[in-house]
């Protein structure tokens, strides 16, 4: 055993038995960074949803009198305006809607795909498993951005296709992890019992294996989210994401980068919004992992 505090000492410090979910909740709450991140992220989401409704401008409105001005309180241009007189605050919030929506949708798709793939592979085992995991390995080796670029080139930049492209490369971690977990569940007694009685395979997968995967799925979902948001932003930054007139943080950052020297606020606000969101999502992901994975260091 490693030269850490002896096990007898550590075990003593643990509280008495509790439900694992309650335990996880408590541990999560102890992680201040995660809790604060959750609050901040909720504020951002609320702002993106409700903010544009409360502000006097829409994201397309051009104000010829106030083009390219720095942040100011007059006229509620709290983030300034771009060179066409469009209010940056509204555009940032609307962009946030798109970024977050794409993030959510792509996460849903990739989580579903990853869980299904991993569960089936882990449960079937043998050749099927080997083949399915080989495919995952191959996909890992491919630089996703290039394929994403390829797909966008060929398929165009329709919103749902963008979501699809992003999902296509975000599901592998989940699949691997789910497969590992499934393998260990498969060898447990209650699964053998179900098989012995003759419960059909698909039924076993969905009523026994999947519920036990919940913990690890939650962890990896919270890890997938920031990755997906980042992917969308990269694509948009390169001009290969959502199309005009839709905007997202990546697009705004791209536009801002072009006028950085004269109007730095154009990049700071969307850049900050994206970075803060990503940081929060990462901290929440870490918190989830600490809370739900008992073997955490």
């Amino acid at each position, binding site marked *: 055993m490693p030269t850490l505090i002896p096990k007898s000492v550590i075990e003593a*410090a643990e509280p008495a038995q509790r439900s694992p979910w309650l335990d996880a909740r408590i541990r999560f709450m102890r992680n201040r960074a995660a809790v604060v991140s959750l609050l901040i992220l909720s504020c951002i989401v609320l702002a993106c949803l409700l903010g544009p409704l409360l502000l006097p401008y829409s994201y397309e409105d051009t104000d010829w009198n106030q083009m390219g001005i720095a942040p100011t309180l007059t006229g509620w241009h709290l983030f300034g305006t771009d060179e066409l007189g469009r209010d940056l605050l509204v555009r940032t919030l609307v962009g946030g809607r798109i970024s977050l929506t794409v993030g959510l949708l792509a996460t849903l798709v990739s989580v579903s795909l990853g869980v299904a793939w991993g569960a089936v592979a882990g449960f079937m085992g043998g050749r099927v498993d080997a083949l399915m995991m080989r495919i995952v390995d191959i996909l890992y080796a491919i630089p996703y951005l290039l394929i994403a670029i390829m797909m966008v080139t060929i398929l165009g930049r329709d919103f749902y296709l963008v979501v699809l492209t992003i999902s296509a490369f975000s599901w592998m971690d989940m699949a691997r992890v789910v497969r590992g977990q499934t393998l260990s569940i498969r060898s447990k007694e209650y699964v053998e019992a179900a098989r012995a009685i003759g419960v059909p395979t698909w039924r076993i997968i969905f009523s026994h294996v999947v519920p036990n995967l919940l913990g690890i799925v939650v962890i990896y979902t919270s890890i997938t989210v920031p990755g997906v948001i980042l992917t969308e932003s990269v694509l948009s930054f390169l001009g290969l994401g959502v199309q005009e007139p839709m905007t997202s943080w990546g697009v705004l950052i791209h536009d801002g980068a072009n006028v950085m020297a004269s109007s730095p606020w154009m990049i700071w606000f969307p850049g900050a919004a994206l970075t803060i969101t990503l940081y929060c999502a990462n901290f929440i992901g870490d918190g989830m992992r600490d809370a739900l994975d008992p073997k955490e260091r």
Partner: protein
Amino acid sequence: MTTPSPKAPVLQVKDLQVQFATNDGPVYAVNGVSFDLARGQTLGIVGESGSGKSQTALAMMGLLARQGQASGQVLYQGQNLLTLAPDALNTLRGAHIAMVFQDPMTALNPYLTVERQMTEVLQWHKGLDRRAARQRALAMLDAVKIPDAAGRISRYPHEFSGGMRQRVMLAMSLLCEPEILLADEPTTALDVTVQAQILALLRELQRDLGTAIVLITHDLGVVAGVCDQVLVMYGGRVMEQGSVEHIFARAAHPYTRGLLQAIPRMDGEASSLRAIPGTPPLMAQLPSGCPFAPRCALADAQCSQEVPVLHAIAASQAADEPFVAHRACHRTVAQVLHHEVLEAGHG
């Protein structure tokens, strides 16, 4: 078992304490261990898991985990090892005081050959060059009876069997002929037959090199076979301490007697095994008073409140008894022995 000699002890431990800083407060893993060790002698430290016996040895070597803090005195050649500067300690470790660990698979570096791991000790401490060091290492491997040492020495640890790995560990620790060897459960991870071989090897090497050995174990059978004096630990404290004869024939502490009774015997009419009821305490939640009180049939209110002090046992000591026996108990020796007679009557 060697006859004791009235020489000055090669190692003196006085009131060794070990505590760990944890999120929930300090944990006292070792409370007041003291003993003298003479040249060529073997001291056995016996106890269940969590009794603090391993931490005692690690503290002596300066190998406690980051959160650990040792106090007291561990005197070797007039120096207190606990307060030595790291460089000075490194000069002693491996060359004068060596340690062998429990699990030879994880205790050896899987990424270096056995040769490298052995020769580096000689190169560092004795300034030997590669070839001379290799010769010495081969000689040592022969001494621990590894067949075909020359062929095997350039292999990696995972290419050896468990028993052979432990022999390699032993050889490695004795390369510089240290005066003191600390062996932390050296045979626990091995088969019984291999255990016997390793112990025999230890005795032989001790005889040849005059090494003093501190042997940590939970197995009383091992103690009986190899040790001269014994120290029984429980809950981080010494419960009883004395010569091996004293412990096995005249043990005067309820815990020690409990341990002895728990040994399954082939003779006699016993129909069931006699275990000590209860479980060892969690070190972070030590009860006040005697740590054994919750499981002791003779415990009373005083036992739960007051920690018994370790004191020498007068009388019932043979004239040629080498070590003064000590024990820490509120009950008298007579009470302990009497209780057992009663038990035997009922059992």
